[in-house]
């Protein structure tokens, strides 16, 4: 967390720089700088003319007074401290007043339009997202609100920016934002299977992406899965390291997502069947299962780090620790293995065999080494299992047991490597 704070400052500077650059580009596009140039030209011609024709001969005042008069006249301020007295001078004054009226109103209009366009774009979901470490939610369906609720509960107090990418009407997006006033929700309008739309959502710098079965938002619901697959492939092409979680309507399409290397795949109704079966046979079991997943239930599943002193000890001691300290129940152990890279296999002193292996892997042109480790989960681990440094605990408790929540921590782990590269 500390690291992140330290890095906030350069990031903010970069944002400011980007903002300034953006304003500059818009102004340039709107011919703002030619207008400024033209105004300056009129000003200098008028002040030189009035200086030569009038002030130099009559009042004997300096050139600065002429410039001052021209500026006061062109902006239609007209103090009247300096006034042309000859006919020639008044004609020049006339020209300056009229050109000033036109030029200055155009200048003001240009500046105003920059801000107005941005505001309009924002409302329509046409702006480019500049946030980093945000969560992108592609597509929308009625479960989306529950997802936002879950994100809010798990990630509080460090709520991330959430970017919605979908084609919902404006009022529905407003309604979503209204539901979660604490969260920073941004909106990008468009089809998330298109790379340029994903690029506008800055998916490259995102922490993770959730691809929902897009049954809302005007696309035919029949091919929602198809669009999910295309969207996942587009995200994996644009940002291979961003964690992706996708929702499918039909299990048939799972293999496509596996092939696209999507990190987490959920098929809608997958677990409903198990709960239904248990409801029919075992009284109470289904209620417990539902309760575990219900966001309104005070008892929740959390991910907790294992305290340093318990590493090397048994699961029995760990469950006792959670029981006593957090009134929590140890449900599972999860361990994330470090990713294996090619260099991990090869020896330090490059031998002929090392060269051979490296060359063969490179020649194959395929990605054999993923940048992500594997996740090993042990549900209800045996009491005599020894705890290692790579283990973390999944605990059922009323309050978050010390430190990070389930979602935040696992997201951090996935994006950790990528963030490291950014700096």
């Amino acid at each position, binding site marked *: 967390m500390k690291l992140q704070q330290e890095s906030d400052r350069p990031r903010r500077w970069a944002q400011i720089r980007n903002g300034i650059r953006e304003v500059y580009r818009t102004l340039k596009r709107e011919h703002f700088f030619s207008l400024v140039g033209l105004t300056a030209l009129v000003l200098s011609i008028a002040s030189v003319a009035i200086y030569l024709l009038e002030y130099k001969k009559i009042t004997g005042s300096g050139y600065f007074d002429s410039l001052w008069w021209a500026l006061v006249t062109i902006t239609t301020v007209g103090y009247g401290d300096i006034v042309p007295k000859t006919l020639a001078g008044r004609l020049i004054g006339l020209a300056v007043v009229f050109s000033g009226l036109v030029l200055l109103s155009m200048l003001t209009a240009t500046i105003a339009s920059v801000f107005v366009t941005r505001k309009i774009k924002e409302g329509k979901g046409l702006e480019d997202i500049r946030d980093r470490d945000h969560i992108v939610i592609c597509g929308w369906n009625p479960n989306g609100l529950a997802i936002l609720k879950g994100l809010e509960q798990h990630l509080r107090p460090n709520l991330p920016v959430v970017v919605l990418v979908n084609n919902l009407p404006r009022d529905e997006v407003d309604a979503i934002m209204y539901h979660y006033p604490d969260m920073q929700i941004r909106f990008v309008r468009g089809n998330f299977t298109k790379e340029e739309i994903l690029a506008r959502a800055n998916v490259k710098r995102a922490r993770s992406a959730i691809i929902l079965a897009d049954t809302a938002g005007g696309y035919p619901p029949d091919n929602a899965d198809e669009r999910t697959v295309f969207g996942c492939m587009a995200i994996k092409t644009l940002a291979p390291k961003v964690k992706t979680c996708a929702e499918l309507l039909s299990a048939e399409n799972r293999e496509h997502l596996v092939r696209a290397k999507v990190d987490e795949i959920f098929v809608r109704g997958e677990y409903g069947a198990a709960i239904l079966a248990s409801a029919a046979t075992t009284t109470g079991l289904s209620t417990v299962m539902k309760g575990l997943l219900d966001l309104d239930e005070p008892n929740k599943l959390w991910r907790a780090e294992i305290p340093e002193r318990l590493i090397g000890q048994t699961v029995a001691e760990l469950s006792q620790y959670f029981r006593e300290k957090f009134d929590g129940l140890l449900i599972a152990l999860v361990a994330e293995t470090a990713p294996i890279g090619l260099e991990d296999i090869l020896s330090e002193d490059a031998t*002929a065999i090392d060269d051979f292996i490296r060359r063969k892997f490179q020649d194959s042109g395929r990605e054999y080494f993923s940048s992500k480790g594997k996740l090993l989960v042990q549900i209800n681990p045996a009491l005599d299992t020894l705890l290692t440094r790579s283990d973390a605990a999944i605990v059922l408790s009323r309050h978050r047991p010390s430190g990070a929540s389930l979602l935040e921590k696992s997201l951090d782990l996935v994006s950790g490597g990528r963030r490291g590269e950014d700096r």
Partner: protein
Amino acid sequence: MIPEIDFLKKIYIFQELTPEEIEAVSQILTPRTFSAETTIMKEGEEGKTMYIIAAGEVLISKSLTMRFGEDDYRETEKTMSKLRAKDYAVFGEMALITEDTRSATVTAATDCTLYETSREDFLRLARDHPDLGFKVMYRLAEMLSKRLKTTGQDVIRLTTALSIALSQ
């Protein structure tokens, strides 16, 4: 040309020997010259001699992949390494122990002078001077066990790479 005692003392397998013993060893070494680019030994051929590089450089190439039968003309993967006289290098030393085929092809990279000795000569010398034989054999065994160890590590690296490649 009789090999110099000082030079022979620096060869790894002779390092334990006394000056008298080295003198005896030098009796069974015959100098041979090879002009650049000539083949000194060929992988797969019968070999009965060991060489010490006295001057020049040789190129050692060893197949990394198998060739299937006589008709297989596919290019095999090869490793290349160079040995120089100043490394006090020997090659073909396995022929001193086993009657087997050469495991690598050696060609002269420059014009070079080598000392050659055959298995018969060496074994006769070792039988006549058991002390000498033991010391040289000990060093040879040391060399081979080191090589066996690196080969074992190579095998582990290759099997790991293979399992990664197949698990995809």
